[in-house]
């Protein structure tokens, strides 16, 4: 299947790949997996004292769409409050990346990952 231009851009130049120390109090870690395809995604946020997401990193083992979805999301959440980040919907990601219907579940994975990361951060405070 041919990937769209925006997916290829994130796939070739993924933004914010890497990890933070999950034990740090200012870090929230979200891990999710898609049983439909076996993709695994880890998304981490670093939250400042003002409650704003300062930085975000991800590592995704999966298809191009899953990598692009998580890469895009790490760009989007930076500078947002936790509440704002929670409002990002998988459809926003799918629309931006022009994902075909069979790849929409990759954006669902990214939405679940950021929600899990926020939950993890909040449970530590």
């Amino acid at each position, binding site marked *: 299947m041919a990937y769209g231009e925006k997916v290829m851009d994130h796939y070739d130049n993924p933004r914010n790949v890497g990890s933070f120390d999950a034990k740090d109090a200012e870090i929230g870690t979200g891990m999710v997996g898609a049983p*439909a395809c076996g993709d695994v995604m880890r998304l981490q946020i670093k939250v400042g004292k003002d409650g704003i997401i300062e930085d975000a990193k991800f590592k995704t083992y999966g298809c191009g769409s899953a990598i692009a979805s998580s890469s895009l999301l790490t760009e989007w959440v930076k500078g947002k409050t936790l509440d704002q980040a929670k409002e990002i919907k998988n459809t926003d990601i799918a629309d931006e990346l022009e994902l075909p219907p069979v790849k929409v579940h990759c954006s669902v994975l990214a939405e679940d990952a950021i929600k899990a990361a926020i939950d993890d951060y909040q449970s530590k405070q």
Partner: protein
Amino acid sequence: MSIDFKKNYFELFGLPVQFDVDNSQLAVAFRALQTQHHPDRFASESDEARRIAQQVTSFINTAQETLKSNRLRARYLLSLSDVDFDDERDTTSDMMFLMSQMERREVLEQVPNAVDPFDAVDALSKDVKAENKALEQAFETAYDAGDLEEAKQVVLKLKFFERLLGEIKQLEEKLEDEAL
């Protein structure tokens, strides 16, 4: 000549409806049905007879592929008990499981940099196969005990292993090609 499409895949091959499958019995029953319904045997018959023969063949092939794969057989068993799978929305959030999957994939990624990549991939493959086997046993235990929700969770996990095992195999083939 047709078959009863209402039969489940196990009944089609005369096998008991259970996770444990006798692969040689499956192979023999599959070949017998395949021969019996082969579209070539209907080449000189009516369009209708040929069309039915094709449908039957396709049904038999799907049934065989489903029962041959441990994961698909497990999933099919659950579907017979009305357990639904939603491939678009189901996500796995078992942290311990996902962390171990992540670690396995990181190890796989590092295999080409190992002093002996063949040893590294062999060791990983052995571990992953053992874990996969343990999961299959966990499925059988949960299914036999009637714990279908737990059995479903195990089936979802098996997909990650299928993917991982596929990637390990690809890497093994790549390493072998490069060694030539």
